[in-house]
């Protein structure tokens, strides 16, 4: 046990506390807020420890601990972080924290809601700290299953259908993934399931041809890769606010992170050979997601399709297989995580007031909800890549990296993917123009109240980090860049 385990320990203890506590809303709320504050604190501490130690330490992973768990299968509980995991930990803790504030009014069964929410976050945190294939896979699945109940019980709209679809599709992905993991383990002839150790070995190329597509698709399902993205719009649209935030903000990043850390790191040859297939698929995600978003009228559907497009960009970038693009991919994960979480939080808050999410039924809300309206506009600008907000840094880095390839195929795809920025501008500006500006559609909306203090906390926190990443990306990008190198080193060897 070392201090990284605290990220799993806090949610688990939290669940125990919730299980024993009564259902008084205030108590539950302050418990969860306390716990999520602790998590932010530990994430920030990890960051500082990491920057301090990284100065002289060139090891791939820091703070590693390795405890034997199931000796006959060489399963270890091994944890460790590099720059990528640290920023993901920070992102997760921010979104859990803001998600708790966004679910102040959750009803019914608040206790059960927070219980499942904590299980979900323990899975996500666990995934980012583990370096063992089995442990990683276990946490991955732990993060998936609470979604069924979270959407099914507390969701809106076609929630039962959406919950079932999401769970089954993601579990289908993890089934492919499990075959991939077993193939990696037995194919490499490793005597450990530790990723860093397996990376030193060589998996025969003919096995890689089978297991790379399986692993990549397995993670790609969660990363909303075309054609496996269909769970995302339904799932995100039906989920309660905090769950949409956490799911679109963090869970979809598990897919990208896994593709990068497992599929490409461990099977570099096949990644080279087969990258073109997945580049085309993710390219479709990027463009198709953006076009689909134009067509939608439901705020959550717009944002869900926009997530498909932006998460597609993450996978697109890591498949470019160079330092710059990969750094951009990780930056995009954080940027999209923050932006989309902010979007979902704001949509949830607006929906809580207007009881509709259709942009055709709203208008002129800026007058009555100035705080929410302005934040929405900022989030929108961040999403379409306005300089000084996080989206710009990430997308810029990705496209610069992608353009380093000089061949026709990559160039064409990059240009096509670039066009998604323009399409994003279309749907964001159209959405803002329709429901925030213009004439008031519904007379009932004239007496709406602007954000309450707890909603403001949630929004301001997210905005702050968006600005922080956008105007001074150095604190994150340097660390990410250093940690991307070992993986890229494998790929260009």
């Amino acid at each position, binding site marked *: 046990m070392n201090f990284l385990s605290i990220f799993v320990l806090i949610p688990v203890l939290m669940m125990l506390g919730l299980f024993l506590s009564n259902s008084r809303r205030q108590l539950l709320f302050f418990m969860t807020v306390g716990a999520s504050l602790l998590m932010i604190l530990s994430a920030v501490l990890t960051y500082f420890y990491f920057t301090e130690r990284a100065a002289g330490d060139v090891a791939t992973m820091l703070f590693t601990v390795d405890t034997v*768990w199931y000796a*006959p299968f060489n399963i270890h509980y091994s944890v460790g972080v590099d720059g990528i995991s640290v920023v993901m930990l920070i992102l997760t803790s921010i979104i859990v924290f803001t998600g708790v504030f966004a679910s102040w009014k959750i009803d019914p069964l608040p206790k059960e809601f927070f219980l499942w929410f904590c299980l979900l976050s323990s899975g996500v945190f666990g995934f980012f700290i583990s370096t063992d294939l089995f442990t990683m896979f276990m946490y991955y*699945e732990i993060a998936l299953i609470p979604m069924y109940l979270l959407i099914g019980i507390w969701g809106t709209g076609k929630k039962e259908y959406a919950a079932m679809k999401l769970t089954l599709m993601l579990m289908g992905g993890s089934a492919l993934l499990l075959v991939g993991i077993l193939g990696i383990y037995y194919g490499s002839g490793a005597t450990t399931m530790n990723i860093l150790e397996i990376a030193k070995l060589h998996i025969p190329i003919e096995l890689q041809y*089978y297991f790379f597509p399986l692993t990549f698709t397995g993670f790609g399902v969660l990363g909303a890769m075309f054609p496996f993205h269909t769970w995302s719009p339904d799932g995100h649209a039906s989920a309660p606010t905090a769950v949409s935030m956490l799911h679109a903000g963090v869970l979809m990043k598990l897919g990208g992170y896994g593709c990068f850390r497992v599929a490409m790191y461990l099977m570099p040859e096949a990644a080279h050979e087969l990258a073109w297939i997945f580049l085309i698929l993710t390219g479709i995600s990027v463009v198709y997601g953006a076009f689909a978003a134009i067509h939608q009228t439901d705020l959550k559907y717009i944002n869900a399709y926009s997530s498909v497009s932006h998460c597609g960009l993450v996978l697109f970038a890591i498949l470019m297989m160079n330092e710059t693009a990969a750094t951009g991919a990780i930056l995009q994960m954080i940027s999209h995580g923050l932006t989309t979480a902010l979007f979902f939080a704001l949509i949830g808050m607006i929906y809580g007031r207007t009881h509709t999410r259709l942009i055709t039924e709203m208008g002129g809300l800026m007058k009555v909800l100035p705080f929410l309206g302005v934040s929405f506009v900022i989030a929108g600008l961040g999403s379409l890549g306005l300089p000084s907000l996080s989206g710009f840094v990430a997308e810029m880095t990705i496209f610069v990296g992608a353009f380093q390839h000089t061949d026709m195929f990559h160039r064409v795809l990059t240009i096509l993917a670039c066009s998604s920025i323009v399409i994003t501008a279309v749907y964001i500006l159209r959405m803002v123009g329709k429901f925030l500006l213009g004439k008031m559609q519904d007379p009932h909306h004239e007496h709406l109240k602007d954000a309450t203090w707890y909603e403001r906390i949630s929004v301001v926190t997210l905005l702050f980090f968006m600005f922080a990443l956008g105007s001074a990306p150095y604190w994150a990008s340097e660390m990410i860049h250093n940690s991307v190198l070992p993986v890229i080193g494998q790929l260009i060897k």
Partner: protein
Amino acid sequence: MDYSSFLQMHEEFSLLAVMVFLLIFDIFASEKALKYFQPVALVLLTAHTIVNCFPRDAFDIAGGMFHYMPIQTYVKSILNIGTIIVLLQAHKFLNEDANRIKRGEFYFLTLSTLLGMYFMISSGNFLMFFIGLETASIPMATLVAFDKYNRKSAEAGAKYILSAVFASSISVFGISLIYGSTGTLYFSDLATLITGTPLQIMAFVFFSVGLFFKISLVPFHLWTPDVYEGAQTNITSYLSVISKGSAVFVLFTLLIKVFGNLVHQWQPILFGLAVVSITVANVFAVRQKNLKRFLAFSSISQAGYILLAIISGTQMGMASLVYYVLVYMFSNLAAFGVLSVIEERTGKVQMDDYNGLYQTNPRLSFVMMLALFSLAGIPPFAGFFSKFFVFSAAAAQGQYVLVFIALLNTIISLYYYLLVIKAMFLNKSENPIETIKSDFPVKLSLIICTAGILIVGLVSTIYNQISLLSFGM
């Protein structure tokens, strides 16, 4: 002949002592003392379990008729624990006026099937094996028909005995062919004598039907849903866990020890059976509305997953098989426990009756949910680990295609397990099942199962212990 070596059969003698004591107690004890029949029985069984849970060195008795291996102790302990849980759950049923006089019989019959399984597990000769198999089957049929005024129960009893006898007669035919072609029935001699002649392959095919029937693999499963539905729920859970668990273990040892040379013949057979069992059972389970039939199909597909461990045929496969049975026991008994409590109090077994159960019975629904998640293989519950190990054992032998098919099937199975969870947690109901206050024995059994589901996976000691003792047969 030196009969003192017989005394080494600790497990069997100790169980026999418990059985005989309970029989005498039931016949001769006063009305007042009989009130304590069940507690006494359970305490004795617990003592029997604890005394016999320490593995010893391997030995042979009666010239190899009875062959003991350390791992058998664990298998028998798992069966013991399962039996105790089932008996705890049957506590209320046996205290009803109509059944109180038959209580002694219930215990005696249950324990004699257990004894039969003991002998089957430890057999070193086909005759011994067959005696064990029959000792386990025939009382089982009586138990299935236990609720004699219930038409369905009687029908189930008749169905079970007819198909069981049919299956074991085919099995005996197979054994006779083995004897005909080799001239011996001792497992240790057969290992080298079975070389793969066509007659021996035929013998194997006929013989294995008896076990496939017990494990209820497709296409030998047709009795399962009807019998599971008709029998009293506690018997059903006994049938689905204990009877099946012993049979898969025996199948594994026989395939390796006796039919080791036929590996290229039995591997494709089992491959086909595993694929068909898992898929057919899953597809049928989706359509079930009656939860007992539902769990029947679910248990068929679980048996299919166990075959993956058997196909691997390695030490890892054996360890993961025993572990799978252990985990499956806790999960399935938890599900059946909840089912039987609700059926006893309200008579409701349809899935629609479970709508809104969480509102009225949060604890029962919670246990049911854990059980179903564990059966579906969701972490951090034990079922995830057991499934992973079974898949891992098969993948280690390069059976990636099989693993892939099995994994795709886990999605179907997750779908139908989620249907029950959906009914309990998501659906609303006009008249949900009223709040049930379960009595202490049932609570205890559910607590044991829940603890098992939560602990067995996360604590690796249990698997490691099993793995230590799973070596060459």
